[in-house]
């Protein structure tokens, strides 16, 4: 968040393209997840890191226990109402740039459990970048989601993730950009209202995106 922002603000837009590519390449190649395994999907996440489906070859070398050291939060499992504020707090503690993968049907939309105890979709709590369906999704699906997230990271611009004032932050439309870094979001409990866009996979690339 430091040097590249200063450079991005100082240079005209056309010159940041190379800088964008370089920084995005660096970011996407080392997405370190925060351990946020909640339920059955966590076991499939553990399977994805085990030797058969090795997530580490895509850059997720270690799962950092401290959210302060993590880039991506893979919410794997059902989020109960008691857990939702904890989830939000962990998300707020992650420094920019950060992304969220919502793994499994329960994290995406409540899944099988349409009842009083489960939050119907983790995007009511944090902004989500990639949704993975499945109950539980196979480890290969998680790897595909990480690759989709890498595609998405490559499309970002360095200008997207900078410190912008609070009022503008509250109107932020594009998810994955939580530019306020002084801890004020922890006090505000802002609810992200927007629906995140999806990246078309390679074989269904659309012209307008």
């Amino acid at each position, binding site marked *: 968040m430091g040097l590249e922002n200063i450079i991005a603000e100082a240079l005209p837009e056309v010159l940041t393209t190379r800088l964008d590519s370089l920084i995005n390449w660096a970011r996407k190649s080392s997405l370190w997840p925060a*351990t946020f395994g909640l339920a059955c999907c966590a076991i499939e996440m553990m399977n994805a890191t085990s030797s058969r489906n090795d997530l580490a070859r895509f850059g997720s070398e270690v799962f950092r*226990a401290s959210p302060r050291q993590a880039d991506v939060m893979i919410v794997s499992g059902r989020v109960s109402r008691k857990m939702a504020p904890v989830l939000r707090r962990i998300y707020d503690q992650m420094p920019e740039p950060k992304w969220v993968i919502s793994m499994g049907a329960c994290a995406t939309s409540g899944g*099988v459990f349409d009842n009083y105890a489960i939050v119907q979709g983790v995007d009511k709590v944090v902004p989500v970048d990639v949704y993975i369906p499945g109950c539980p999704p*196979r480890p290969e699906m998680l790897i595909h989601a990480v690759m989709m997230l890498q595609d998405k990271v490559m499309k970002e611009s360095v200008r997207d993730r900078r410190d912008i004032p609070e009022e503008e932050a509250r109107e932020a439309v594009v998810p994955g950009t939580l530019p306020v870094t002084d801890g004020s979001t922890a006090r505000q409990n802002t609810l992200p209202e927007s629906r995140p866009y999806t990246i078309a996979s390679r074989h269904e690339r659309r012209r307008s995106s």
Partner: protein
Amino acid sequence: MSTAANIPPQFEIVDRPLDTQMTISMGPQHPSTHGVLRLELVLDGEMVIKATPDIGYLHTGMEKLFEYKKYQQGIVITDRMDYLNPLGNNLAYVMAAEKLLALEIPERAQTIRVLMCELQRIASHLVWLGTHALDIGAMTVFFYCFREREKILNIIEAASGGRLTPSYFRIGGLMMDLPSGFERRVNQFLEKFPKSLDEFHTLLSGNKIFQKRTQGVGRISAEDAIDWGLSGPCLRGSGVNLDIRRANPYSSYEQYDFEVPTEPDGDVWSRYMVRMREMRESHKIVQQALSRLKPGPVKADAPKVVLPDREAMKKHMDALIHHFLIVTEGFDVPAGEVYFPIEASKGELGVYMKSDGGPKPSRVHFRGPSFVNLSALPQMSEGEMVADIVAVIGSLDIVLGEIDR
């Protein structure tokens, strides 16, 4: 009151002289709590004075969901309860419903049930071993265990279609018969497994560091264990010879020849040894089950309860009508209540099912073994160091899905 500018107003600073005791929250997000468990630890330096588990972070309201779903729809929900041993959950639920319906299960179905449940027990113990060793510091074992577990998951997926949530059993038998080539796959696994177990023993049991971290830690005596309701390997690790497969046998377990391992000490090491020996016994049971497999039906003879074969449904009118009625309206279960305990990989998994005569149960309660095992954690951990708490939690083999349901 807080005078610093940056501290949010809901946190106040209480000025107090330095105590030797501090309360920390080993929070819901923690790499070693095996799920979303929160422990409030009162520490004096490194020693734990009081440990209070705070659960409910994964409460899913499954017991309420069962009351709104027909009996066969509930099988899918049971998978997600103890997600390391889903076939065990399925079995408990299905057998409780079968007890209410007084169905007789054909022998082939019972044999396959035993086979799949014991494979599932090995898979569950492998995850326990991998994560327990990882918490204590041995990372290699984690990867080796998951490699073995992939083989079992492939077998379960070949039979039922799901790796982690198979839902393979149905009320009255199985979902469908085993695929061709299944026995060859299981034999392939069975040949290599004892060697892998010996590998784990080489890596862990002879390791002085592992021994020092686990022996003498987290002791619980046999009387305390029974008083706290421990069951399964936790109880057998304290010297009590109790296994539901021997005490109240179900699903033809009385015909199999296996030992019930017990260890006298009641500490983390004993529970570790009990589970390692149990994996060997499960291996024996799977071999016996495989040799007993004879051709036969896999569904009970109860056309109003059990779905007919698809070929029969496509050709015969009554099979079609039964299929339609079972799927849309469900079957009526006679009023009554049963409590059916099985020996799951974690202990005594009991299902209390109460029916009032309709197609949906009136109350389904799962007595999760991890729920009860965790309640004994304060007893086991007071007086231990913080690092030993991690070992004790690992040895209890808790799964939060079962605790919080």
